[in-house]
């Protein structure tokens, strides 16, 4: 079955081309079939490839397929080629299967939109680019996919381009991620100049042989690449674009800004894990970035009132968990969390999409309420997603993946317990608080808006499937102290360096799990107390000035936008204003007016009389000959 590997990205690309060239003339049904079908076929192909991968693992643990030569220079050559190993296969499975479900959902969700076909064209292109990103066997191709998904993200955030603020949001996302991309490009340039190859495996081999651990070059290279990952994955300090990216249609938020694209940074670091092993300081930095992001985003999420923005901050926070896992060397754990997160976050977004649609495009959760009875299917699936997000013990997938990361954090050398304390205790608490805040406020209480636009089958089926995955997905990897199941680790672990101190912890591990579980339950309880039990606690708090100030601070995403506005935009504006009129301009004007004056002076020579010009030529000839005689 390995021969069909190339089909997996090619199918969505074909769908994109079909839609882009013929979509305008297609009936909606045909466009939907093309758009959904291409991704569906890609998912089918992925499943087939995955099945044969599991039943008969290829030599070297990877399928390698070189399609055609791309750049061939004496000093540097690379091909358009794919390399599929366990890590890639995990990503591919998530991209195509979750992608297919979201496409199916979109075919109903977007059905009233005028540019239906264009939406699917962009989505197909996105899926294709994302697949290229994860399947690339060299960094140039990876970068192609990287920029491709960024471009699609820009298109889709601004999909409703008639609203000016959506375009602003799209631009913001594009520009902010561009900062990271430049950093990444520099990193790639450094790697190329150091090793004269872009092939990932070859590069990692040469790096391991050529670079001493902890020396300056690997630190710089990994730092630059981390810049790219941070930008794409919306981590501190480049996280500001993701909340605004919620301007796009909800399926876009689910697919691109929760499940797949934003985890490209995680993938990049995981893919180049051998490189990061050469720069322990940077790897620690990854952990710190992840920790800081997950806490800050969690705090910001508590204060949001827009349902989608809550989920956006939650995404930032959960990717922070993944970074934490990467930083402490638990790559498998990070990837496990990535997979589980894709399931439940896509679920949450899709459910939120239904809610928002049913409430007549109302985003503010405090104007909703009581939807438990109006939208029972959505309520239950949303509840499952939120539980998984809050890592309610034992029954949810999120519990298992998060526990794994926290166990890694505990073991991470000297700062381990601190990481665990902040990330585990505080993070878990915050997560369950904000997720159940959303649940209680949205689905309980009095119904304030009558529901409309109830979801059909094509929207419900993905919700159900994703809800099932959010529960069952966790059971393929269970800590040994509960039950010895380690399917995921045995599948993907071979790709990564061995996790440090991954030994089983016995009673310590049990203790840690109990504390974390307790904290997540406390979070649920706190949310209940604050937002559900009457109106008391929350209302009373809301009166105090201090609370309002904190709330506004948290609501604004901890003021990052404000800081950036003043630090970069305003200073740039000021500098521009300073330079605009006088300083540089005057010098330029002087050059210009001097030229104009010279031109006017010389213009007098342009009498229009040909004979005058000839006289000039003749004088020149006389001078030349005279010089020859005289000299």
């Amino acid at each position, binding site marked *: 079955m390995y021969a069909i590997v190339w089909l997996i990205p090619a199918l969505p690309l074909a769908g994109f081309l079909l839609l882009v060239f013929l979509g305008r003339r297609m009936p909606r049904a045909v466009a939907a079939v093309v758009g959904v079908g291409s991704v569906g076929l890609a998912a089918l192909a992925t499943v087939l490839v995955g099945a044969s991968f599991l039943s008969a693992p290829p030599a070297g643990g990877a399928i390698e397929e070189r399609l055609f030569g791309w750049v061939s220079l004496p000093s540097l050559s690379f091909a358009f080629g794919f390399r599929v190993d366990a890590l890639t296969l995990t990503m591919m499975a998530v991209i195509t299967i979750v992608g297919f479900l979201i496409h199916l959902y979109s075919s109903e969700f977007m059905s009233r939109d005028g540019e239906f076909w264009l939406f699917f064209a962009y989505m197909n292109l996105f899926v294709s680019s994302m697949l290229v990103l994860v399947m690339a066997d060299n960094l140039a191709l990876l970068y192609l996919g990287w920029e491709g998904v960024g471009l699609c993200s820009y298109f889709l955030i601004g999909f409703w381009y008639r609203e000016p603020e959506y375009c602003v949001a799209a631009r913001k996302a594009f520009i902010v991620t561009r900062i990271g991309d430049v950093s990444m490009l520099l990193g790639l340039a450094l790697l190329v100049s150091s090793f004269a190859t872009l092939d990932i495996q070859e590069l990692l081999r040469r790096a391991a042989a050529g670079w001493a651990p902890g020396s300056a070059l690997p630190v710089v290279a990994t730092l630059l690449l981390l810049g790219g990952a941070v930008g794409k994955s919306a981590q501190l300090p480049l996280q500001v674009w993701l909340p605004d990216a919620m301007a796009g249609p909800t399926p876009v938020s689910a697919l691109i800004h929760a499940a797949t694209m934003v985890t490209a940074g995680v993938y990049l670091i995981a893919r180049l894990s051998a490189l990061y092993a050469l720069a322990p300081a940077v790897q620690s930095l990854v952990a710190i970035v992840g920790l800081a992001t997950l806490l800050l985003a969690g705090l910001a999420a508590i204060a949001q009132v827009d349902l989608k923005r809550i989920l956006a901050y939650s995404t930032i926070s959960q990717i922070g968990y993944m970074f934490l896992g990467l930083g402490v060397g638990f790559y498998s754990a990070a990837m496990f969390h990535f997979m589980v997160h894709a399931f439940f976050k896509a679920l949450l977004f899709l459910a939120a999409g239904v809610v928002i649609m049913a409430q007549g495009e109302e985003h503010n959760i405090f104007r909703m309420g009581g939807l438990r009875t109006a939208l029972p299917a959505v309520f239950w699936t949303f509840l499952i997603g939120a539980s998984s997000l809050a890592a309610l013990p034992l029954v949810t997938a999120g519990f298992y993946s998060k526990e794994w990361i926290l166990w890694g954090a505990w073991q991470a050398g000297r700062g381990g317990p601190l990481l665990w304390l902040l990330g585990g205790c505080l993070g878990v608490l915050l997560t369950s608080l904000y997720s159940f805040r959303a649940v209680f406020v949205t689905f309980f209480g009095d119904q304030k808006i009558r529901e409309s636009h109830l979801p059909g089958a094509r929207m419900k089926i993905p919700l159900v499937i994703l809800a099932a995955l959010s529960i069952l997905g966790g059971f393929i990897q269970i800590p040994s102290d509960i039950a010895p199941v380690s399917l995921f680790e045995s599948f993907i672990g071979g790709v990564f360096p061995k996790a440090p101190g991954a030994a089983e912890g016995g009673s310590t591990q049990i203790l840690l799990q109990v504390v974390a579980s307790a904290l997540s339950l406390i979070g649920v309880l706190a949310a209940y107390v604050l937002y559900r039990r009457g109106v008391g606690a929350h209302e009373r708090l809301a009166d105090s000035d201090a609370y309002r100030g904190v709330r506004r601070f948290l609501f604004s995403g901890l003021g990052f936008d404000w800081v950036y506005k003043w630090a970069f935009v305003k200073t740039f504006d000021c500098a521009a204003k300073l330079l605009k009129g006088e300083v540089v301009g005057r010098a330029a004007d002087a050059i210009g007016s001097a030229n104009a004056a010279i031109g006017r002076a010389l213009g007098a020579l342009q*009498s*229009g*009389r*040909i*004979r005058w010009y000839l006289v000039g030529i*003749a004088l020149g*000839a006389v001078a030349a000959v005279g010089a020859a005689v005289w000299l």
Partner: protein
Amino acid sequence: MSPQFSDYALVVAAVLFALGLFGVLARRNVVYVLISVEVMLNAAGLAFISAGSKLGQPDGQVMFIFILTLAAAEASVGLALVIQFYRAYKTLDTDSARELKD
């Protein structure tokens, strides 16, 4: 054959060139300007040929042939311009075509 021919021929070429230059500068009629240019080209050809003869090389004649081609191309384009000039201004006085100035 006198060995000094080529020296005198160079002097003749210089005289012809100066005459052509005079014509180009003094005449205002485009046709005369063209005639004078041809004279100057001829003078250059004579100079090349006498130099080639003096040095015993065929290169002088080769250059003359190139000058000839140049003259042919120049004459054809130049005459086409003269015709258009006359159509536009109903005169051949170069000084009447002074629109470029404004």
